[in-house]
């Protein structure tokens, strides 16, 4: 096994994370200066880090909650403004859609009425189909049919 690989295992051994080859690593550490240094570094770092600790102010949690409440109240105002704007935009879109629909429906109805009028007046159709060249019989027939409609 290469030494670099062994050194990695030594680091795992130091941390109690090595599952296999434990005896091999223990024997190696006893004979290898470089690996002994890794163990020594671990002790020094562990000791140093745990030696010098600090404590925060007992009022920290109160301060955090006060800041959070302030942020929340500001957030609530913005939420209200954003919510109101959103509702206004939705209402305007709905009004636009309703007006457009009404316009389309009324246009379609008017076309249908025009068609209905044309269908109800054979005299006009006849005039159109003959290009205005009517015989006396045609005129008589149209007059009678219009009279019937009335």
């Amino acid at each position, binding site marked *: 096994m290469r030494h670099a690989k062994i050194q990695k295992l030594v*680091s*795992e051994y*130091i941390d109690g994370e090595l599952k296999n080859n434990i005896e091999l690593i223990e024997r190696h550490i006893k004979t290898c200066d470089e690996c002994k240094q890794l163990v020594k*570094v671990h002790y020094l770092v562990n000791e140093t*880090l745990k030696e010098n600790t*600090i404590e*925060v102010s007992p009022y920290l949690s109160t301060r*955090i909650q006060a800041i959070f409440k302030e942020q929340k109240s500001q957030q609530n105002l913005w939420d209200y403004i954003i919510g109101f704007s959103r509702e206004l935009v939705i209402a305007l879109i709905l009004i636009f859609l309703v007006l457009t629909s009404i316009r389309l429906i009324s246009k379609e109805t008017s076309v249908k009425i025009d068609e209905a009028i044309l269908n109800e007046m054979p005299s006009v159709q006849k005039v159109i189909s003959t290009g205005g060249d009517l015989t006396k019989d045609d005129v008589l027939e149209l007059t009678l049919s219009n009279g019937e409609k009335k």
Partner: protein
Amino acid sequence: MKEKFETLDEVEIIQLAKDGDEKAFEFIVKKYQNRVANLIFKIIGDASIVEDLTQEVFLRMIESLKEYRFGSALYTWIYRITVNICIDEIRRRKRLRAYSLSDVLSQNPKAEPSHSHVEKTVEQREMREIIEEAISKLPPEYKTALILREFEDLPYDEIAKILKTRIGTVKSRIFRARKLLAEHLKEYKDLLK
């Protein structure tokens, strides 16, 4: 208040905090504030900003409490927020340092970094100072993994969750951190004897 929450398990306390119970949140802050503060202190190495950053950790925690999933332990989640805030702070400091250095060089083109070598011995300086200085020189990702292992005594899998990385990467970072420290401390021969 303390007694009430001590009888509840962590999931119940978090649920209460999620539902807006201020006392539950206060309990969480009080339980973790010193651990978070010390982790920040060890990673950044500057006591003057520890309280501000601790405050930031818990404010970020309240903001994202609704997104918290009960899959991981609360401390894993809080430590992840802490590490992220520390990394942001380290980056911010690096940018500031780079800026001030370029500022100085542009103002005085002849200025050069000092290379004066000071003879260092264990007798001259406190051992703790030497180790702390060596740790502070480690790359942030190595330093964070090493501190979570050596200071918090966390197992590799928990460190991996906090750092959102693989266990193999954690092993490797801790090993490299120790190697770099050993290299650095070679100057102080008495230390590694």
